[in-house]
């Protein structure tokens, strides 16, 4: 388990021109889309809201449509998705994002009205940064966006309002925004100048 000394600033997020985080929010409920958009705007984020997992993939350019390799992919610093959606669930969307070489480093937060431990566990196993219980509060959104803005690891990841992680939780090291990824190669000795990031359950 990483101790305080192992957590270091990997690099601040590449934010857009206005210095804001760009967040992609995904929810099939019109009411919830409007609420999450407002919460994110108040937290000083640039927001793109879509109504389904497939729209999200379309937006990210992951929908399998032939796209020119030379094009810059859209820049997103955080994805917040509802879990229960018709068609593609938030969990399925999470998996697709983590399978993508372009977007796997982007933190994904899953939101759900149901506090189901197996659901929470599988999302975290799949690489979700956090699991938020709905209705989502402004304090939840601020905490998440602050953490990402600072590019720091979170000690003692908070999963849901009702449960805290057990001791085997490794703090999340957000390597999402360093342009050079450090594959966790255990066989090579760590270089003297760079701390070897621990392979975290919660992010790559």
């Amino acid at each position, binding site marked *: 388990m990483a101790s305080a000394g192992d957590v270091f600033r990997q690099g601040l997020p590449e934010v857009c021109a206005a210095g804001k985080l760009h967040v992609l929010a995904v929810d*099939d*409920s*019109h*009411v919830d889309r*409007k*609420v999450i958009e*407002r919460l994110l705007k108040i937290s000083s984020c640039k927001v793109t809201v879509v109504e389904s997992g497939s729209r999200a993939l379309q937006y990210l350019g992951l929908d399998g449509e032939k796209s020119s390799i030379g094009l810059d992919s859209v820049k997103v610093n955080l994805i917040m998705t509802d879990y229960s959606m018709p068609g593609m669930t938030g969990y399925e969307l999470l998996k697709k994002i983590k399978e993508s070489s372009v977007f796997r480093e982007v933190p994904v937060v899953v939101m759900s009205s149901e506090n189901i431990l197996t659901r929470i566990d599988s999302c975290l196993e799949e690489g979700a940064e956090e699991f938020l219980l709905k*209705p989502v509060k402004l304090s939840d959104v601020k905490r998440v966006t602050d953490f990402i803005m600072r590019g720091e690891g979170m000690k003692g990841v908070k999963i849901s309002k009702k449960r805290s992680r057990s001791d085997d939780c490794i703090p999340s090291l957000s390597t999402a925004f360093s342009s050079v990824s450090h594959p966790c190669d255990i066989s090579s000795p760590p270089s003297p100048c760079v701390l070897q990031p621990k392979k975290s359950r919660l992010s790559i």
Partner: protein
Amino acid sequence: MDKINSRRQVAAMKQSLFDQGYLDEQFIQLEELQDDANPNFVEEIVTLYYRDSSRLISNLDHTLERNPVDFNKLDTIMHQFKGSSSSIGAKKVKAECTLFMEYCRARNGEGCRRSFQQMKKEYATLRKKLETYFHLARQAGPVETAFRPK
């Protein structure tokens, strides 16, 4: 003097909506998101909720009429309705949704129908009360409305 009275009325009405269990904390959370640039945010959200609700209630009606009853479909629709009710703080409506879903899971068609009728009643009551509340709030003018009831 009129403004002060209007504001007292708004406060009293809100207090009563909370005391009687129609609304919960989430409603206050939404009011706290209002500011000068977005003074009617809650009313906008609630209007969206009415629109979604009409569609979902109609959907539930149709699904309940069919034979045999598709409980899975009912559960899915009600889950959506419960979600948006929760998002605006509609406490009583949300409780009825939960009850309905329990009947669904028990495959109890009669229970579903009864609880659906009850849910529609609660929804209609809440809607009337909120319409009055927003009307009063607009009359009282923009003011610090996001106070917590006692």
